[in-house]
């Protein structure tokens, strides 16, 4: 398999691309010599069903290579991560070749690179000229993530900026109206702006403007944190995925230092990650029921969610599982009570499944959710949707727990449990809730039932983890200091950390700077790829190219569709 990739990359490359050694045998790192080579390799990867994971821009002008660089990461079907390093060439020191035609998911990251670094593709125009992440209050050419920009200078420049006028609204076709919503919403929700293009009640198009919550997190990693302390910021990137974010960060630093966390730490990480998935999926199912006005069940489920969150509090002294992950393992505040986890789950899950089963068969729930907000499999693949949204569209294997298992997930019994979630009916009669797989077709109903099914999967994984913990030595350390290993890692070495959070995979790309500082930390939340998918699910579109039928949603469907994706604004804006 590996030789296949290498042979292919050699065949495509005009001169053989240089391969650099990696600590991790499951990673390959190539340096790309020119634009055509990058495009040819990407094209080949697309045909071979590789996923695009992340694009990291790094300002290495002050280092030996004297240029900006882009690191593309791809996931191969053979559980390998392929890193393509693209140095900017001397003729185009501020522009690069875009792979958007091949992997459209890169678009948000390219827009971000323009706002934060001032770099743009030379073979593709950017969709929005500016204002994707940095809005009116920022000057045009601030480019805050360039290494040459000092914090104090940035603030001076912003202070001197006159506010740019708002762009003039475009013209609309006859009968069309724009309905602006946000950035401050009529509920307890995060900030983001939606412009609905409506004709009557039907949503014809939707433009989503995010970036309101941009806090400069990536710059903050470089200026205020070190490799050892960065986890504190990582867990505050997106509150509901605190544990997954800090875990991905810690794995990136461990990869950088070339160490693994102790086995019992990996079991705890799996257990807590799945607990996070449980409480969020339960909350989302409840929120969806609230949106279809089935408040009786929604209230009951809200109580179950609260029970799960209180379990988090008892285990970790934090309701959102913060303060546990460290590079090198986990630090639990006290000896956790394993029986408590089992009892609480035994209390929550049967009630949850009972309610969910009832709801799935409820006629008005089906009427409201089936064929609402459809994201088809073709669309999901084309735009690179990820996580639960991709799986609910029928892209069932899009799960990093299966594709790149890490730590305790490697164990065959866990792999079987996850496989069963996505196996058509009749997988395992032991499962509390069978998945109606025949209807995983990307509508709100699919996302609802998949959440329910994944709660069952997580319950089983947690029980496996509990058994493993009971068998293991209770005195075994769950954390080992890795300060020395971090120290020993060469400067400007990078590490990749990823984990399958409840929304989808989270990627951290961390490069070491001098004195254990962070030279660059790129955070990629799954929401970055799924916001464009949400738009596709909402707008009016043909069922297929030959048919005259359309998928249509009315304005009142939007809250429900939005909730069924439940994307992070904070994780997108950073």
């Amino acid at each position, binding site marked *: 398999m590996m030789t296949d990739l290498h042979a292919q990359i050699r065949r495509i490359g005009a001169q053989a691309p240089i391969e650099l050694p990696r600590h991790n045998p499951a990673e390959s790192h190539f340096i790309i010599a020119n634009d055509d080579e990058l495009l040819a390799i990407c094209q080949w990867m697309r045909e071979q069903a590789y996923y695009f994971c992340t694009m990291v821009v790094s300002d290495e002008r002050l280092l030996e290579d004297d240029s900006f660089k882009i690191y593309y990461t791809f996931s191969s079907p053979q559980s390998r991560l392929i890193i393509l390093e693209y140095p900017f060439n001397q003729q185009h020191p501020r522009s690069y070749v875009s792979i958007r035609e091949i992997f459209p998911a890169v678009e948000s990251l390219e827009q971000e690179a323009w706002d934060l670094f001032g770099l743009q593709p030379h073979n593709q125009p950017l969709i929005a000229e500016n204002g994707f992440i940095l809005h009116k209050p920022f000057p045009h050419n601030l480019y805050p993530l360039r290494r040459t920009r000092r914090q104090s200078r940035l603030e001076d420049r912003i202070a001197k900026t006159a506010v740019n006028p708002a762009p003039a609204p475009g013209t609309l076709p006859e009968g069309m109206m724009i309905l602006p919503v946000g950035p401050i919403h*009529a509920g307890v*929700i995060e900030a983001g702006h939606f412009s609905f293009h409506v004709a009557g009640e039907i949503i014809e198009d939707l433009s989503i403007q995010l970036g309101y919550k941009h*806090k400069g997190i990536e710059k903050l990693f470089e200026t205020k944190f070190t490799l050892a302390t960065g986890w504190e910021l990582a867990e505050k990137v997106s509150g509901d995925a605190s544990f997954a974010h800090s875990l991905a960060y810690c794995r990136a630093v461990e990869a950088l230092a070339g160490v693994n966390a102790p086995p019992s730490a990996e079991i705890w990480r799996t257990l807590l990650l799945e607990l996070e998935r449980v409480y969020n999926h339960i909350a989302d199912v409840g929120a969806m029921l609230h949106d279809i006005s089935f408040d009786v069940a929604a209230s009951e489920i809200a109580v179950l969610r609260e029970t799960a969150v209180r379990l988090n509090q008892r285990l970790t002294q934090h309701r959102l599982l913060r303060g546990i992950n460290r590079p090198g393992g986990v630090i639990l505040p006290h000896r956790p009570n394993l029986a408590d986890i089992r009892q609480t789950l035994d209390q929550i899950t049967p009630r949850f499944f009972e309610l969910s089963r009832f709801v799935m068969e409820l006629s008005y729930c089906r009427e409201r959710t089936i064929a609402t907000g459809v994201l088809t499999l073709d669309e999901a693949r084309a735009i690179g949707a990820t996580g639960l949204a991709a799986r609910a569209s029928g892209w069932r294997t899009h799960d990093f727990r299966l594709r790149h298992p890490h730590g305790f997930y490697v164990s065959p019994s866990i792999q079987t449990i996850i496989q069963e979630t996505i196996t058509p009916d009749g997988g395992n009669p032991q499962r509390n809730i069978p998945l109606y797989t025949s209807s995983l077709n990307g509508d709100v109903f699919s996302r609802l039932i998949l959440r329910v099914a994944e709660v069952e999967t997580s319950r089983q994984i947690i029980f496996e983890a509990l058994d493993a913990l009971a068998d293991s030595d209770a005195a075994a350390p769950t954390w080992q200091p890795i300060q020395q290993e971090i120290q020993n890692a060469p400067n400007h070495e990078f590490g990749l950390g990823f984990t399958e959070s409840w929304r989808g995979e989270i990627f951290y790309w961390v490069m070491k700077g001098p004195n254990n500082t962070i030279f660059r930390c790129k955070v990629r939340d799954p929401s970055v790829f799924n916001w464009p998918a949400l738009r596709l699910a909402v707008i009016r579109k043909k069922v297929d190219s030959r048919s005259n039928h359309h998928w249509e949603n009315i304005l009142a469907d939007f809250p429900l569709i939005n909730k069924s994706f439940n994307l992070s604004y904070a994780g997108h804006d950073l």
Partner: protein
Amino acid sequence: MNVFSIVWKNFKQWLSVDKPPQSNAAPPRSLYLRHLDCGSCNGCELELNALSNPLYDSVQYGIQFESSPRHADALVMTGPYTRNLDEAARLTLAAMPAPIIITIGDCARDGHIFQDTYAIMERPSEIQSAIQQHIPGCPPTPGQILAALQKFKTE
């Protein structure tokens, strides 16, 4: 008995009540809130949402969230105040009948972990002067929020 007869029975009962019960206690007060996100991590929002679950049920104390700032007694502000939300935040405050803000979470006090970045700004004076209460925590638990709001309501 059908729905209409139940409604009629209740209606008759209601008619028979001639005057509200008298009490010497202070009149019950309510507190209508509007949420304003100024760049939080979504942690405080999760806990604010938890206030409406049946275990906390803030509505029983007269505390509830409104859809419009025009109907609200106070703004509940979360997050470290990002530059991109400055304009929207000021417009929201301007739409309030009276400028009262309650800040929630450590980063709404002084930026906390998000201090000193180019994207966070000092709050303008009209926002700063409207802040009457701060609820600390990262994020504060629903119990802490509820207790603080009840205290705020009676003061």
